[in-house]
């Protein structure tokens, strides 16, 4: 991976002139760079690490450059990768807005749980969710497992659980999901490709 490869030159005119920043800024709800000087900094290898990624929207597969603040470990700039042969740096409105998918004040960072007939979400930790979900899967599986079908043929399948998703997973996660779902005996396995 070829990261941090840009030549960075010191800002002269722009920084010296104090290019207008918009005081009304507040969109991302985080302390983002909003002066020319700060913006330039966000691409500098001294302050950020640059990694490559692929846009998470349509299937053109446009290359992204992601700059992550070395201190906060949060993304500070995401734009098209000019070296990528498909998009050559270009991005559509969605691709250009990629950073808001990750750095977003409305993004939930906690696990939420609603008990049966509950009227509110409750915050829970992963340990609780994991244990409870595993228990529920086991119960549904054990109760609905068919060893043989109506014709008496061996089928070894779980009829009581449906799995939906996901084209949003990476290939490796798709493989993990496929093997996990099939190990549970699920036959109702579907995702976005069908709809």
């Amino acid at each position, binding site marked *: 991976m070829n990261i941090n490869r840009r030549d960075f030159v010191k800002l002269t005119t722009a920084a010296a002139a104090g290019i207008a920043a918009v005081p009304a800024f507040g*969109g991302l709800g985080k302390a983002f760079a909003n002066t020319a000087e700060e913006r330039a900094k966000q691409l500098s290898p001294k302050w950020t690490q640059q*990694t*490559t*990624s*692929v*846009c998470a929207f*349509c*299937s*053109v*597969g446009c290359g992204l450059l*992601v700059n992550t603040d070395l201190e906060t*470990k949060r993304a500070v700039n995401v734009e098209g990768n000019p070296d*990528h*042969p498909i998009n050559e740096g270009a991005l559509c409105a*969605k691709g250009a807005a990629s950073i808001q*998918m*990750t750095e*977003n004040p409305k993004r939930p*960072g*906690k696990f939420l*749980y609603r008990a*049966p*007939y509950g009227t509110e*979400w409750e915050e829970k930790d*992963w340990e609780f969710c*994991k244990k409870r*979900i*595993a228990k529920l899967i*086991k119960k*549904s599986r054990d109760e*609905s497992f068919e*060893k043989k*079908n109506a014709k008496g043929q*061996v*089928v*070894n*399948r779980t009829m*009581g*659980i*449906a799995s*939906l*998703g*996901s*084209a*949003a997973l*990476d*290939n*490796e*996660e798709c*493989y993990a*999901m*496929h093997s*996990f779902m*099939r*190990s549970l005996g699920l036959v109702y396995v579907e*995702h*976005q*490709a*069908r*709809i």
Partner: protein
Amino acid sequence: MTNHWNDLQNSDCILIMGSNAAENHPISFKWAVKAQKRGAKIIHVDPRFTRTSARSDAYIPLRSGTDIAVLGGMINYIIKNKRYFHKYMVEYTNSSFIVGKDFDFKDGLFSGFDSKTNSYDKSKWAFELDDKGIPKQDKTLQDPNCVFQILKKHYSRYTPEKVSSISGVSVKDLELLYNTYTATGKKDKAGTIMYAMGWTQHTVGVQNIRAMAMIQLMLGNIGIAGGGVNALRGECNVQGSTDYALLYHILPGYLKTPLAGQDTLEQYNNTYTPKSNDPESANWWQHYPKYSASLIKAMYSEDTPEQGYQYLPRLDNHKASVYSWIPLIDHMYEGKFSGGLIWGMNPACSSSDSVKTRKAISKLDWMVNVNLFQCETSDFWKGPDMDPEKVKTETFFIPCASAIEKEGSVSNSGRWMQWRYKGPEVFGDVMTDGHYFHEIWEELKHLYEKEGGVYPEPITHLSFENMCEENEHGHMEFSARKTAKLCNGWFTRDVEVKGKKFKKGQQVPSFAYLQADGSTTSGNWLYCNSVSDTENKAMRHDASQTKEQANIGLFPNWTWCWPVNRRILYNRASVDEKGQPWAPKKAVIKWNGSKWVGDVPDGGWKPGTKHPFIMRKNGFGQLFGPGRADGPLPEYYEPLECPVKTHPFSKTLHNPTAVQVEGEEKAVCDPRYPFVGTTYRITEHWQTGSMTRWQDWLVEAEPQMFVEISPELAKLRGIENGEKVTVESVRGSLWAIAMVTERIQPYNINGTDVHMVGMPWHYGWVTPINGGDSANIVTPNVGDPNTGIPEYKAFMVNIRKWKEGDN
């Protein structure tokens, strides 16, 4: 895509039909415009004038759902005007095959139809075989039962006048389309098709694509640069997630899910391993047992493939009407599932008939929804018409890492497997989806080992460690790098294959080395060759090319592409029997006397020794396709909800084999729902908007649910531009802001104006405030008989001014 994005630049004519590429695959237009600047024509055939139409050389409006009429007319035109590439069609397609005597076609129905089950006996469409078991051919194409003659007869019915009367496309526009596009039937010309859900989301979805594939075969446009059949996939990894089989009917690499009665691996393999007696047919699927054994060995490394096979669940059949999305949601609605795992999806908005789907979710005892943001699925219990106190479903919302917070690969439409590196740390308490799968499995394994339970072996034996590495705390955790190695596959013991010696643990160099005896693993044979002992090729960022590769924009060292880094599929069809390209100026591959140069050829055999369509049993492109559920040839049928009682091609109004839910009402010529409805996407949002509706730069650009209608329809209903309106169907209703635009026109169908109401499906009640709800509230539960994909693109609605009390 048989080809890839950069390859669009090589085209002489780009037909965009069934897609809105400029809006939904915006960067594709980088390459489409490049072709256009070189003199290529772009033609957009679509019910709406969109941003794609704005940049096309010709825009041709058609009524949604009438594509087969238009394409059938094109086949007729090709035959009548001899626009086909004769040598290609005769040598590389099954045009010369003799179809058996049982084949027949009468009044919209093919032979073998059973009206009790609404399905066909496909054995009636078989080819005649010679005494060696090889299909009989008449290369003069004169035999009345040869495929070419059958096509000629079948599509002679698709006259421009008839096509025009039902599709609303003027005869003049048909001539323009046919003449321009079929000019690519010359051997040095390339025509390509960019299609997407505008073709798949119909009850004739597969046959829409079949029709175009047939046109491409007749014109010699498959395998060549600037040609192909190009499905523009809708999500960043829907190609990969399909390759990895998150679908009821397949296992990774397009292997079949086992059926009841296939009690042993041998029985299973025998069923799906085709046999050809033609030495010139590569019949690639003959290797099926190697791929199935390697997959099972990847999943169950401690067991033999035969034993591991016993851990796989069996279906009763592969029918879309039984297991696919529509029946799945119907089952859920009927209360037949107790649990639902809904991963990276928002079916409460994306599933057809959202009202039913949302109710269906409430019938589950428990539901887990994993997403970046809360959505209408995670929060369904407090949605419209839901009383949380009456909803039993125990609900989990599990937030997950975003794409740039983790590493792993995704496969784009051009089949490029591209690695993503981790940038920022995962946010808050969240983890990656891979970690969730692993940890829930670990917990389950522990539970089954501790408590016992029904048939625990498939879970307890699952080799999840193949996907894990030890982290800095000494715990095994999910690792994308390790999993990528597994998906490629490694040797499980020291072996010699094809004269080469391999050590246990070494990566398998390509699927040609996979074995049926358990000595290799491969999580997906199509991806075998992607990760070697020294490198993960998806990570490659090397733009170097040979002169031949540069000439057609191939980047063989930039990431990796399945299969075996072949960038253009069926490329042996781009050359003649001597290996010389039909179009020397844009050669894909070429035999230089001793080896192939250019792209990775579709098999390295010498030229003229194998038929080029190596994935087909007989090696030929299928003009006649006897494998589909609804007939061997595309035939015109109306959408299941439609504005006409008859059509000019037969008395069979609808696809008789379409997936339907018994008892669900459909609006056919129903005066309450007089307008054709259709749904689509726009650039600024994505799918149900479950991510983009939280991204305020995108909400700013497209803030609210809207509906596009023609000025004529607006006048008819007294609707002003920008006004709030109600759209309703048999299934439900929703509000939208009216966009009255000349870009929508009424269609002249049999002399009558038919109006269309077009809606995006990006919105939902959770956010933004006053954003509106999902267009899928009005879409029907009917689908294609082969794929089960719902008919989101053509159904019947009413539109009127919004009034107090409406949704």
